[in-house]
């Protein structure tokens, strides 16, 4: 186990660089109000399925399989983020479903800045037994992709082709 050594205040910037390099989008919001306002503009006119995580303020339809399959955008919180790889971490303990971040073609996640960890190593030292907390821990690093046809990179094959992370408090 090796903890990456860079200053805590750079974590949001580091995360943003890593996810942007994978064609993901990052929005920095100074506070929760600004984040939710931004979210509402992004969702305007779209069919939205969203988790009931308090940080989202009760937007969109509640989880159901049908809603996930029909939605344009799935909105979730996230338990952690990993700065060095641009990864989001989900434990279903936080009542996040598996399918909201998977079935719709776009995924937006809202996360507080202090939930950004340095790396996989720090995650596994903080959560050494993910199976105790939840039946599934899912790590998402950028949009769904494939290169199965002539090695050409195509995004959004089964999971979302677009991913946006709103970081609150930055």
């Amino acid at each position, binding site marked *: 186990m090796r903890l990456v050594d860079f200053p805590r205040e750079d974590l949001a910037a580091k995360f943003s660089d890593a996810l942007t390099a994978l064609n993901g989008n990052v929005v920095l919001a100074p506070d929760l109000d600004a984040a939710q306002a931004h979210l509402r503009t992004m969702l305007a006119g779209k069919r939205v399925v969203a988790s009931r995580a308090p940080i989202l303020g009760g937007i969109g339809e509640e989880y159901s399989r049908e809603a996930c399959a029909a939605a344009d955008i799935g909105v979730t919180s996230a338990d952690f983020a990993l700065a060095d790889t641009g*990864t989001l971490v989900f434990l279903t303990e936080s009542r996040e479903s598996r399918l909201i971040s998977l079935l719709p073609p776009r995924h937006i996640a809202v996360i507080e800045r202090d939930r950004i960890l340095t790396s996989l190593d720090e995650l596994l030292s903080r959560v050494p*037994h993910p199976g105790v907390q939840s039946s599934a821990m899912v790590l998402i690093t950028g949009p769904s992709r494939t290169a199965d046809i002539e090695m050409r990179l195509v995004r959004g094959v089964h999971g979302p082709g677009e991913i946006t992370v709103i970081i609150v408090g930055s």
Partner: protein
Amino acid sequence: MKSAPPQKIQQTLADPKLQKAIYSATGRLAGNRRKTIAADVLPDYQELRQHAHDLKKHTLDHLDAYLEEFERNVAARGGKVIWASTGAEACAFIGNLARERGVKLVVKSKSMTSEEIHLNEHLEKDGIDAVETDLGEYIIQLAGEKPYHIIAPALHKTREQVAEVLHAEADSTPEDLTAIARVALREKFLAAGIGITGANFLVADSGAIVLVENEGNARLSSSAPAIHIAVAGIEKLIPRAQDLAVFLKLLGRSATGQPLSVYTSFLAGPRRAGEPDGPEEFYVVLLDNGRTKILADPGKRQSLYCIRCGACLNHCPVYRKIGGYSYPWVYSGPIGKILTPQFMGREQDPWLPFASSLCGACGEVCPVKIEIPKILLELRQEIVEKSGDRRERMAFRMFAWIMRHPHIYAQFRWVRKLRKLPAAGPLKAWLSQRDLPDLPKKSFREQWRERGRA
């Protein structure tokens, strides 16, 4: 030694389009890997490799204890472990479960283990429709073919060929074709009663399986249907969830040159109370199918450390020429060359460990440091000792005797005068693929004498 079935090899060598496809795909994968393990981005790469090797060694040396711990913990999380000593047993369990639950449609995410046991054919015989959902696997399933490469199953197909298989317009782009597959498979995910996946890792201390992928089809297969079955070889165990910090860093980089693959799912049992979704039933089929036989051989046990990244294929000068279909079994490339004889018996395709230049690239790039060249040599030795050609053995014995007797060796000066070896008899096949360098004007002995040192 009996030579390779020449037909597939000749076909592959004679097909310039295919040659280019193999060469560029493996070259790109190898290049991506190099960028993500470079010293400036991953300074402790060699330490990680050694650590991964040591972890695998430790786990396999104590596999009995870890298997029991794994089973206990899967049960504690509400899942169930099924022990299958053969592929047929594994397939029978899955077929029976599908019948009992009235399931007619199964979605599958890419798994080399299920290829190994011919799961799809078995399910079809039971009247169950098993649909591959990894894009590459979906294409080759529709084409009625086998995976060409451990991580790039449809590497050999051009976009035009894919369009034909998907009944799409001939000038479709990879984006169009991917979109067609997405729509078709989406329906399957939502309708299937069982999702079958492999497992990249089995985590003993958590009773969990870990799936690593880029597309999202493994997440869908393990989350959308009411039943999730993971089929995995017993060698996939690692002791602790924390060990993933080592393995995940190596797997993505070695396979596709990604610091972390897009989706990593750590799955411990079925959905729990309060969780909105996930399967209601969770099974792990632990497959032996010859693995304990390899485990019993301390010298070659390390063949089981393999994490199926495909790096050895991408760096192999032989694989890059003869492609994935020239190998007799589901595992191709250098790792296939050591696994196939050990699983299927050395007598089945005795040429296989000999189809190597022993350049050592496979061992060099292996993220868990399997000494593939060394194992190839051991297999060669075993094969020759058991059933080697008598004439060949005699020839080598004579050669050794001559080399040990300088005066007799000197009598063979005339061989140099031939300039070209006669392409006849046993030399003919050997020379057909090799260019010998021109011999120097004077032999070493002559030069030595001339310089006055004799």
